[in-house]
């Protein structure tokens, strides 16, 4: 018997051995949780519910019953209405046309949905993520000849997805064999065949510009690698004090209004990643609009092109159905892995993972599962860990190197970091940017608290800084943190016994710490100049502040009164420096340092003369 050549698309996700969709009926509707009777359906299978055809997913089976979580509101659905099993798990479409777009929690394109259903989202809409009518210019990989052995991750060719991003068309992870044919250069739509591959069993597979992947299954790679390079975000308190690596995992916890979203948006804007995936998970609609309206206008500081060309958004706003919120994080991370497979450095921002965890809690509560802490199910910690585990720097199946950095906002109730989501997250991540209400209330932004935040990547980052920027980076960083620690100690003393109890040297320490806080740590996202700060400028500012502090301290030791130093106009100028000079004007900051050097030298000489003459008078 000869195996027929399959010319129907063999889609690893949707090619289901069971031919017909199965139909069953609805038995119970409890908010987003619907019980259906449908023998033979699989766990994880996609289902369409009721006459409206709402989308959902089987989350557990019990005899002939299946429990379905629906991604859409079940208002108006009745027991007895049909339920149809689709045969495949929740999956996403991966191919050119993702960048620049905004998708809902199950990857439906929201801009297209707006065209079809107006300002409010209608239910039961089945709109594919990728535009089938769009034609892409495909450039085949010239190194591939028919007969070549190809496997998962082999680059079949490229498509210029946006001006900045070349989309590499890869053999999907589960396929491998011999290349039968590869299409010549030309214009193709997504459904067109751009190649054929014969697998070990002799089946022929049609290859297209896109494929599907089930979101709950991590995409395979060859090997995990350690992170080597810092993710530069242009934010001083991050890059200089609590650095993140490309491929790292991080969290930004903080009470409401402390600045989590701003931190994430700043990373989305200014980080030196190739691709940015921003998942608005249970947060405000207007925050996504902000990105949608501003990113097409902003220039990427590295490529010079518009930021939107490397960005894609996943949106499940707080008023959208809760279950799709749970899905949105998986949808986002799968797309991130896909671009990593192409060899890119991807950053995924999830705002907020607490809302994701609450979606888990909501579903588990409706299922009557035993809660363990604050209503959360026992599997909260393992689910969180599994999501973060999908980040990382890897050697891809195509033997390139790529990374996914995952940074999640955490919204602890009442700002209490001991609550379950924050504390479990803290155990998983390596970089912790803890936002403080006190700092935010005092409008010290970003309100990243230098005492409670940490980074496990300082030594790795130091290698990069020492090589690229300055050999003194780690030393300066430590010096600044020590000064800030002294400041906290002295503040306690002042609060007990008043400022008069401090020595001149101690007062100068307070002044030095204030300089670090205002001149280095504080960085307004709204300041046109200071919103992004290059590593060189970061170092120059830090170096300047510490230099002033050290030289001042030396003068005080000689007996110069601290008041004289506190009045130096140079201190105000140093505080303003960050907004006066942009990242190309680092020489100006260095010039200011030279100025400071002269000023201090002058005071020293004057003082030495004065004390010499007074000594002479004795």
């Amino acid at each position, binding site marked *: 018997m000869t195996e027929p050549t399959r010319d129907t698309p063999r889609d690893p996700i949707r090619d289901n051995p069971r031919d017909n969709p199965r139909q069953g009926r609805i038995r119970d509707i409890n908010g987003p949780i619907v019980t259906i009777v449908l023998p033979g359906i699989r766990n994880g299978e996609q289902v369409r519910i009721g006459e409206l055809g709402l989308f959902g997913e089987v989350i557990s089976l019990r005899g002939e019953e299946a429990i379905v979580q629906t991604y859409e509101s079940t208002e108006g659905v009745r027991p007895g209405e049909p339920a149809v099993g689709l045969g495949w798990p929740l999956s996403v479409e991966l191919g050119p046309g993702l960048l620049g777009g905004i998708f809902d929690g199950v990857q439906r394109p929201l801009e297209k949905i707006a065209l079809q259903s107006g*300002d409010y*989202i209608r239910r039961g809409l089945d709109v594919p993520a990728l535009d089938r009518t769009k034609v892409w210019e495909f450039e085949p990989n010239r190194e591939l000849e028919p007969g070549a052995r190809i496997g998962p991750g082999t680059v079949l060719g490229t498509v210029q997805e946006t001006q900045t991003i070349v989309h590499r068309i890869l053999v999907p992870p589960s396929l491998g064999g011999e290349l039968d044919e590869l299409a010549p250069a030309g214009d193709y739509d997504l459904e067109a065949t751009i190649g054929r591959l014969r697998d070990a069993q002799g089946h022929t597979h049609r290859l297209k510009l896109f494929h599907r992947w089930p979101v709950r299954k991590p995409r395979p790679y060859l090997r995990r690698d350690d992170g080597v390079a810092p993710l530069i975000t242009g934010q001083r308190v991050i890059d200089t004090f609590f650095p993140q690596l490309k491929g790292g995992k991080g969290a930004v916890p903080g009470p409401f209004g402390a600045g989590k979203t701003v931190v994430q948006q700043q990373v989305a804007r200014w980080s030196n990643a190739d691709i940015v995936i921003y998942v608005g998970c249970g947060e405000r*609609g207007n925050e996504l609009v902000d990105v949608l309206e501003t990113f097409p206008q902003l220039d990427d500081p590295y490529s010079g092109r518009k930021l939107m060309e490397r960005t894609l958004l996943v949106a499940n706003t707080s*008023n959208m159905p809760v279950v799709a919120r749970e899905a949105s994080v998986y949808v986002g991370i799968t797309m991130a892995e896909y671009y990593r497979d192409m060899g890119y450095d991807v950053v995924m921002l999830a705002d907020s993972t607490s809302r994701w965890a609450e979606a888990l*809690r909501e579903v588990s509560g409706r299922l009557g599962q035993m809660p363990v802490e604050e209503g959360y199910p026992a599997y909260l910690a393992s689910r969180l860990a599994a999501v973060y585990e999908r980040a990382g720097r890897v050697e891809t199946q195509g033997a390139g190197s790529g990374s996914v950095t995952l940074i999640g906002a955490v919204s602890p109730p009442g700002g209490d970091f001991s609550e379950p989501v924050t504390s479990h997250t803290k155990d998983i991540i390596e970089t912790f940017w803890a936002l403080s209400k006190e700092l935010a209330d005092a409008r010290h932004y970003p309100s990243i608290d230098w005492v409670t935040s940490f980074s496990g990547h300082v030594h790795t980052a130091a290698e990069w800084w020492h090589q690229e920027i300055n050999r003194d980076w780690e030393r300066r960083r430590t010096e600044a943190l020590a000064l800030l620690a002294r400041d906290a100690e002295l503040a306690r003393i002042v*609060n007990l016994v008043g400022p008069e109890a401090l020595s001149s040297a101690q007062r100068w320490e307070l002044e030095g710490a204030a300089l670090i806080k205002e001149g280095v740590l504080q960085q307004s996202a709204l300041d046109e100049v200071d919103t992004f700060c290059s590593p060189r400028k970061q170092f120059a500012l830090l170096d300047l502040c510490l230099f002033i502090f050290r030289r001042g301290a030396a003068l005080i030791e000689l007996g110069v009164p601290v008041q004289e130093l506190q009045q130096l106009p140079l201190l105000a100028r140093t505080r303003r420096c960050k907004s006066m000079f942009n990242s190309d004007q680092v020489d100006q900051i260095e010039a200011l340092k030279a100025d400071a050097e002269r000023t201090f030298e002058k005071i020293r000489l004057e003082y030495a003369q004065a004390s010499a003459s007074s000594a002479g008078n004795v």
Partner: protein
Amino acid sequence: MSIKEYRTAAEARGGLLVMKHTPGVAFGDRVLIKDHGGGRRNGQVIRASDDETLILVFEGVEDLDLESTWVRFLDEPVEIALSPELLGRVFNGLGEPKDDRPPILSNIRRPVGGSAINPAARTYPREFIQTGISTIDGLNSLVRGQKLPIFSGSGLPHNRLAAQIVRQARLKDEDTSFSVVFAAMGVSYADAKFFRDEFASSGVLRNVVMFINLADDPPVERLTLPRTALTAAEYLAYDLDRHVLVVMTDMTYYAEALREVATSKGDVPARKGYPGYLYSDLAEIYERCGRIHQRHGSITMMPVVSMPSDDITHPIPDLTGYITEGQIVLSRELHNQGIYPPVHISPSLSRLMKDGIGKDDTREDHPRVAAQLYALYARALETRNLASIIGADELSERDKRFLRFADAFDQRFVGQGEAEDRSIEATLNLAWELMSSFPRDTLTRMSETDLAKYYQGAD
């Protein structure tokens, strides 16, 4: 499915009624309940299955008996009738008249549950609203389409402040005032009357729709009231092109009603007995506010949230703060000093301020004035705190200046008359007057140009 009646009540507890064998009833549908005395109550299906239907009874299940209770399934969602006649009227949480006038007749009927706005259809709110209140306009500006709650406590003047804002709010260079949707949940008769009189005396009553559920009205009705009110607001904004200001008071009573029902449903509690879905539930309400592409009207929202025991970390203000675009926080301390409106600026915030102020909207120095005032006030509060420990006499000259600033700021910038409608220029000029008590070099948030133009100090 059509209208059907059943007498199969099996259980009644905590606002809930369980019906047996009512096949084919849709989740979310409206029902009418006839009790033993012939009285009518309204309800909504909140769980539907083959053998059992769970009904939320808005008027409560007090003194229902199981035998003689009839339930009529109306085969329609909970909805209200909408027409321009809404304006000037008073309704309850279900949209039934409360003013002895006939119900609204209209063939426009919409489900009160609403549906989610597609984020891709939103427009970012950026039009500055002048409220005439310095702490808001100057430091926590409100823009059209924003949701900005007032966090308050019992006995604090949040109602007076809300009323003052309704009276004074307008776009900077426009005279058109807002249409107002007023939603009262669980408030006292006196509070409701206060607002009514306010609207009447400022002559806006023709432009106001009120939805009222008083403290002694059935609590379960509070669950639909804000939804009904917002459905009316959406109609006014998007069908009639009006700019709508929605005042909702008090969200705390709303959340308490929700907790009551959740508890009797047996929902797993998250914090302080509130169900885990309180966040999403509140978000469904608050996120109905905003601006939409190519629609002329808008919905701006000002909910009042009273903080139980003045605790901002209590789940209701906490979850509200996580959803809204900032908050105006009232302080008991300032109130006790006789300062009105007692806005505590440190925890107050407006997240949408950034795009609504500055050169083209208010004045070029505005963003930096706000940042500078905040920085000075933060330092001033630290100093005040220090002075309370070691005594003001022990402070340095520098610190004493901060102390004087703190007092002047509270008295003159925060404090203003209830009828005082300050223009944004007046607010900014007052800010400069106060800041000019500091040496020029202290004002590091200001640009050189600002200082040259507005600084009034000696050096």
